[in-house]
């Protein structure tokens, strides 16, 4: 898994939850997912699928709503976890 591929995989996993592509929505890296229909339960599913797909364990301190706000913030957390670095905020 290279860093460069993380955002595209993240987008795919987000789309499985929120179905943007079918509705013709072009998701930008800084679009707020919580404003676009994400709920606590879709966030939960997104978190589980991200960990499973990237085979990574996100540190407990990033398991919060703000981590799952945008493609960029999710990518940052995933890349940090992949590098074994705590994603401090």
């Amino acid at each position, binding site marked *: 898994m290279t860093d460069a591929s993380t955002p595209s995989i993240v987008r795919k996993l987000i789309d499985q939850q929120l179905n943007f592509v079918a509705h013709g929505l072009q998701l930008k890296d800084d679009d707020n997912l919580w404003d676009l229909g994400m709920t606590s339960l879709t966030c939960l599913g997104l*978190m*589980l699928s991200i960990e499973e797909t990237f085979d990574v364990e996100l540190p407990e301190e990033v398991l919060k709503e703000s981590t799952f706000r945008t493609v960029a913030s999710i990518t940052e957390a995933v890349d940090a976890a992949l590098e074994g670095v705590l994603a401090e905020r």
Partner: protein
Amino acid sequence: MVSESAERPQQAELVIVGNGALGLFLAQELTERGAGSIAIVGPSTSETGASRAAGAMLGCFGETTTESLRTDASRVRFELGVAAHDRWPAVLDGLEEFSRTGRPLLSAPDTHVVLNSIGGELDTVNYQAIRAALDEYDKPWQEVDPHDIPGFNPRLDTRSLSTMHLPTEGAVDARGVMEALERKLRAAGVSFVDATVSRLVSSDDVVTGVELEDGRVIEGQNVVVAAGIQSEALVRTVSEDIDLVPTFPGLGFAMIARRSGGDPFRSVVRTPNRGFACGLHVVPQGGGLEYYGATNRLVDTISGVTWMADVRFLAQYSMQQLDERAASHEVLRWLSGNRPVTLDGFPLIGWLPPAGLYLMTGTYRDGFHCAPLLAEHVANELQGKPGIIDPMFSPTREPIATRTVEWSINEYVEHNLAAWFETGAEAAPQMTTPQLTEYYRTRCVQLYDQLNIDYALGPDILWYTQGSLRGARRVSRYLRKHGGTSTPRPETARVGSGDAR
């Protein structure tokens, strides 16, 4: 708290980690059998343990729900409580001389269970389940006029619909019992070590002792971990590979108040178990003191905090549903504790894979009540004798299944509706109960879809899981390894099948 031992032992035949009810009663059982030296290790000022915050109702039938006798496994669990109940008269006889409270340790001899209209249908069906269980086990009960219950004085809007008297289920003064027990054990030569265990010590896959936070080690031939919600983390200090059923902290809050006027309660007065918790109850403590309890919420981390919402909940509903004069009672102590709640709701009792290590926890809300019975069982096992309870509670079992996913969804809905009405939540007039039902049902179905598991969870675990990413991850990971699955959920659990309506 009884004064500390001057010296700290370096070894004992048995080291018990945890100074709650389970650990103390086990030590008592063993000393009465003349077993060898015992060291009990635990901080005397623990603010997170369940035992010292307990209401200590001796109420196996008062706790009955529709789930209690529905499956064989639940019945085995229920009958632990019934068997434990019979041991308490002798337990108290042996402790009274060590009590210094000046009040009887049996703080109430009997219980009144009140069905009022505030808690939703769940109250009604659990109330009926209590009666059915009493009849099935041939225990006495009687329908009574709620006006005849000393102390009971609810507001009119939550007056009782029906009330039953359980003459043989009372309550003990939990804190008085613990102090008397500690005094008795010290007199019998048991060592109390006022310290926190940081890890278990092992060598060649045999547990040989415990290390304290200051680095000192106490060696033991056997180590029993009876440290409540701390137990799982301690066991994991030996090996991450021990495949325990997960436990979660069930944070609860209660108050001890001094009555300022009116007739005191002379019996336990309680509702049935309701909405994710153990029902509202008042337990007389003697000396004009009354225990009001209790809340229950599963949380990510162990703490001794009290949530403002829980203070409001308990204070408001005690005044509303038990005695409106409680408004002017003086709160003397706020108690909070963490119940050890297992994923499948059943206790964790048994030897673990590293030799010399025994686990005794996961008793959720009746560890105090069951402690004398479990002590007898564990003492037998430690001494190589046959146990007296079913071996199904092994800590490394597969999670015990008692319900289908569909059943679990309905239970979740019922608990949420009960909590909705009890907390006085209001929806727009055109939003009917079936619509609320559908909301909770849809949410629960979606939760199962996201977790992608087939194991059916209890309502409290579901409530926690839907609100905690950490919790969801832990539950999902464990169940995918154990009977959880990546296959699709059965067709039975779909939005709109509507059985809970």
